[in-house]
């Protein structure tokens, strides 16, 4: 397997595991906010993707942080 693909898969899995462990905490603390997650912690909080990605690009962190809009419970009712 391509090394880049394998590294990316590990990073994605790590982010996914972190979200599974911390989603409730995110929903309680940052509903509807956009957060950047890196190295097992929230490293930036914003109101919109634009400002969070701007920060992410400025910081040039590796691996690329996960930018995630935190849902509210009510948001689950909007999915068909």
């Amino acid at each position, binding site marked *: 397997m391509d090394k880049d693909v*394998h590294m990316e898969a590990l990073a994605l899995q790590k*982010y*996914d595991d972190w979200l599974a462990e911390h989603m409730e905490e995110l929903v309680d603390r940052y509903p509807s906010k956009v957060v950047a997650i890196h190295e097992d912690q929230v490293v930036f909080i914003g109101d919109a993707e634009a400002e969070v990605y701007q920060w992410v690009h400025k910081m040039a962190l590796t691996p*690329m942080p996960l930018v995630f809009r935190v*849902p509210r419970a009510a948001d*689950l009712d*909007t999915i068909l």
Partner: protein
Amino acid sequence: MPTHVFRYKPVQGRLAPIITMGIKLGEVWYPIGVYVDSGSAYTLLHAAVAQGAGFDYRTGHLIHLQVGDGSFIPVRLHDLELQIGTERFLAKVGFSERLGVAFNLLGRESVFARFKICFQESQRLLTFET
């Protein structure tokens, strides 16, 4: 056959089939959280994601998709690389400024034919098998 396993994400006690995948915008791979939605024809992302990443989504093919209330929303379609687990593949991905839901959606086109996807909510697991 590789099987990629994801945990459901709890949202105030309710379980959401959200997974983290990769998407290549320009020359950069971005991790992104998406709600796995068998009711969505296409993978649909908020235009704000593309704007934030500096990707000009407006160059994509314009289509109009009907949503739950019967109205149509404009969507710009692109062929983009996605990564789920260790699988990289091209997929039709749409961007819209009027998505109408809070989540980015992982839809059927280019995805559901590639994986056998099992929603095992009782075990709080989603599996993608190639």
